[in-house]
């Protein structure tokens, strides 16, 4: 099974779409989520996200990701809840109050972040990083250096996670118990960041050398062997996403 941000092979429509079109669609959906605060619209985008995830058999991963994003955004939501005194008073606070508007603002933050994060992560799971980088260089004229930096970062995430797991296993074998509260685990894991950092620097240095001795500096936008033509499905998906964006802008303009 693929790990965090690792490509999941498949033949779904999303898998077959042009990498740049996929990324553009995800970005347009994300922008749309920030163009309006309409909760029904945002929930609609979440449903669309889950439908897209289901179409490429990634429902479980999408739900897991949505949970993680919701948990992360709960902190922001709590801040909004306590600092946005709007609507009917539900609970007074020394510096204001929590109102119905505060609750809506908090919920809106969570739903918005989930709605815009899921498509972006889906792109990672259904696209080979190399294809994404090469297509971005060829079609969007992104400098290869930046594309390579991005793909290398994603490539090294599971490598570093494996390294960390290895270091933790070695510590466990020496009697360190990583069970227990989050704070305790964090305290035990903090010193392990040093060997992880050392090994990470070594690995990235080796990777840079390996890339350089294989002509990294000679690469141009025309170097990629594979081609990434835009198909009708890509244009259709882009058009659909632009319509969603237009709807978001319209809702915002109408004050809904």
């Amino acid at each position, binding site marked *: 099974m693929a790990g965090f941000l*690792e*490509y999941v092979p498949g033949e779904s429509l999303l898998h077959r779409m042009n990498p740049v079109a996929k990324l553009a669609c995800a970005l347009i959906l994300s922008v749309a989520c920030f163009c309006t605060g309409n909760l029904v619209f945002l929930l609609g985008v979440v449903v669309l996200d889950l439908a897209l995830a289901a179409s490429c058999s990634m429902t479980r991963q999408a739900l897991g990701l949505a949970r993680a994003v919701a948990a992360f955004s709960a902190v922001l939501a709590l801040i909004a809840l306590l600092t946005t005194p709007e609507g009917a008073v539900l609970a007074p606070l020394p510096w204001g109050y929590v109102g119905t508007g505060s609750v809506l603002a908090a919920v809106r933050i969570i739903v918005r972040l989930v709605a815009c994060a899921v498509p972006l992560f889906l792109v990672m799971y259904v696209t*080979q990083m190399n294809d994404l980088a090469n297509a971005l260089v060829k079609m969007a004229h992104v400098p290869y250096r930046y594309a390579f930096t991005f793909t290398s970062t994603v490539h090294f995430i599971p490598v570093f996670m494996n390294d960390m797991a290895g270091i933790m296993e070695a510590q466990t074998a020496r009697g360190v118990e990583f069970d227990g509260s989050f704070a305790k685990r964090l305290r035990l894991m903090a010193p392990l960041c040093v060997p992880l950092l050392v090994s990470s620097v070594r690995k*990235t240095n080796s990777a840079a050398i390996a890339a*350089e001795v*294989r002509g990294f500096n*000679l690469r141009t936008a025309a170097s990629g*062997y594979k081609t990434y033509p835009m198909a009708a499905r890509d244009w259709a998906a882009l058009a659909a996403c632009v319509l969603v964006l237009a709807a978001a802008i319209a809702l915002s303009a109408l004050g809904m």
Partner: protein
Amino acid sequence: MIEFRDFSFRYREGDAPVVRDVTLTIPDGCFVGITGAAGSGKSTLTYAVNGIIPHCYPGDFYGAVTVEGMDTVETSLTDLSRAVGSVCQDIDSQMVSSIVEDEVLYGLENFGVPRDEVEARLADALELMGIADLRHRAIDSLSGGQKQKVAVASIIALRPRVLVLDEPTAELDPASSAAVFDLLATYAREHGTTVIVVEQKIALLAEHADMLVIVDGGRVRFAGAPGEVLEHSAELLELGVNCPRSTSLVNRLRASGLYAGPAARDVAEAAAACREVIA
């Protein structure tokens, strides 16, 4: 031709030179095996050939190293890479792609290999390393040995005139290691490629290399044809290099005056020597 002339190197963060006063000439098309104890400076010697030192690891560089007339200090790493293909020790770090096919394509794309040649080179390299069936596999799903073959294939596809490999069989079982060396030797013969391999398995080097280089404390202690170098099995043992048992056996026969022939590089040569002694 590759030439080391009074070459010494001290890493910037090091106290003492890792390699000292190395003078060595490697003819074109030669299959060279470098071995020695851990930390003896084997890898540093190869870094001097492919330009990783001083271009990536700075330090005090004395003497000169030339590859096909190019001074490795004055020539850029990219220009050197056109002639010298390198397979590093840390295979996982060497992988820049997530799919085998993309990994082999990477260098071909960068060096601007014509599009009509790319497919043939890609297929040939995978076929040569016996991993054609892995072409569309994710690199993360491969074993260590398979990754090593992918790394070698990705360099062979570039058809370099010099091939530098740092412990290319570290994660392979004995049979696969022998198979990789057979492939490398065949490839080098057919393409006239100079191959420099750092390897701990001296039996493999003895069997396949045209020249053996024994490094100790940063100095080249022995360099020459395997038969000549292996005659010094007792000294090699002191340097932390274990010769094959067959070699040690024949050397004992030589020392006791029972046999006057050359040192044995493998079991077949040792058996022939024993037969001669018995007869």
